[in-house]
């Protein structure tokens, strides 16, 4: 049985009496330690799907189970990293990470402090522990948010376009950093993005979504295609990677053509 299992999960929003279908009924299993990216056009419903896994939205139909037990509202088992860096400005870097261990009853106070120090090192923020959030860069803020989420030791890590607001160089740096973190933490992860390269580089498996309402167009086993080795920057230039990237791009292009024929034609 998969670690995280979605059984015919769907979402219909009520927009002032008008029913807007955001997510088509979807059944999906994610294995323990597997990193899955949800790739799709903006506003397609992939974020809504992930928020349902996090318990921040209620599915209109279907069930979500973790280790076989049904999930309802949000709790510590599913940690979330948002695109808008939700690191708290009134706390220092260390203070933010400390908030992640604060609500854990499974740790002694010594173990909590040790966890905070270990995570500061893991995300590369040693020496910034006393800095306030407004004094550090966007990339560092997002590392604080990631460390804080890991501090709560969730079973599933949910990341909603966490690098979407960062400049290209910082984004690249954090992608590599996240690969390091994943090696150390090995969490079951869902990572939402609209960046094809990012989706492939970070994942064991890529789900390509249609335009709204979200439907899985293709479920790609990245590990099988790229091999089980470590992901690095250099991997992006290998023929296998480029081939996979072209394949994904063509799926997305066809989908756009189907959903909004005029737009793609105009864009040439």
């Amino acid at each position, binding site marked *: 049985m998969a670690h995280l299992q979605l059984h015919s999960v769907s979402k219909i929003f009520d927009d002032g009496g008008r029913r807007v279908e955001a997510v088509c009924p979807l059944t999906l299993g994610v294995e323990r330690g597997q990193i899955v990216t949800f790739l799709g056009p903006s506003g397609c419903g992939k974020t809504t799907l992930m928020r349902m896994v996090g318990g921040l939205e209620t599915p209109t139909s279907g069930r979500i189970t973790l280790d076989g037990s049904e999930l309802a509202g949000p709790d510590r088992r599913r*940690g979330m990293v948002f695109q808008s860096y939700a690191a*708290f400005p*009134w706390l220092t870097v260390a203070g933010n990470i400390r908030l992640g261990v604060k609500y854990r009853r499974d740790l002694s106070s010594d173990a909590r402090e040790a966890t905070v120090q270990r995570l500061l090192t893991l995300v590369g923020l040693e020496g910034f522990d006393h800095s306030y959030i*407004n004094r550090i860069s966007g990339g560092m803020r997002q590392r604080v948010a990631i460390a804080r*989420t890991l501090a709560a030791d969730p079973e599933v890590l949910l990341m909603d376009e966490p690098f979407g607001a960062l400049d290209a160089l910082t984004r690249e740096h954090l992608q590599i950093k996240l690969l390091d973190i994943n090696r150390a933490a090995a969490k079951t992860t869902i990572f939402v993005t609209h960046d094809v390269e990012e989706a492939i580089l970070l994942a064991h498996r890529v789900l390509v979504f249609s335009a709204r309402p979200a439907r899985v167009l293709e479920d790609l086993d990245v590990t099988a295609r790229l091999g089980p080795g470590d992901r690095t920057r250099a991997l992006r230039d290998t023929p296998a990677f480029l081939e996979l990237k072209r394949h994904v791009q063509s799926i997305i292009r066809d989908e756009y053509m189907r959903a909004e024929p005029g737009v793609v034609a105009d864009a040439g």
Partner: protein
Amino acid sequence: MFGFRTSLPRRIEVMLGMAGLLTFLLIWHLMAISGWVKEQFLPTPSAVVQAFGRLFTESGFAGDILISVGRVWFAFLLSVIVAVPLGLLMSCYRAVGAFVEPFVDFIRYLPVPAMVPLLIIWFGVGEASKIAVLWMGTFFQLVLLVSDDTKRVPAEYIESGFTLGASQWQIIRDIVFPAALPNIVDNLRITLGWCWTYLIIAEIVAASSGIGHMIWSLRRFVKTPEVMAGIVAIGIIGLLTDQAFRLAHRRGFRYLRA
């Protein structure tokens, strides 16, 4: 110096502020000595300064100031103690908001001076009615301001809290309150200013002490310099309180600065 939307060195800003004040005093002085306006209506600035001194030495003005400041702060803190928790709950629990908002909105639009006769019938002419006037004037405004400040806390902050395993109470204490606090303190500063307005009204209508009472009783003897000195005193107290709040805000919320 007249760069469009540029900033100025602190020293120049202070000097310009002083110059503005001096210009005002100079025009006032010239008008008073020119004979356009009778001295009875417009005494010179220096006459007001002398009256200011007399108020303290002859009329025990310090005691009045102390009483007025005491009333303002007592009533203000009384409304803060109730308004801050209630405002937080109103925004965190829609049911509380829906229950309280229409009533608060109704009271909020009643002019407080209109309530004074009723409050005097209820509470007499003692301290209680003055505290009630001030409390009415600030509480209903403050509770909505706090509720709005709390509503502006980003949803991601609260959702992060839930996914870290915090309970609703822990989220209010550890996330919602500290996130809204800088804006709440700013609104406290503004509300305290209103409190002074209502205090003077309350003291003019029914009081035997306080700055408002002092000004009102001196009016009967047409002691214009003393009346103006009393008004200046209110201005000075207001300015000092405001600056103290601003300083506390800067010190307390250093982390807001990049």
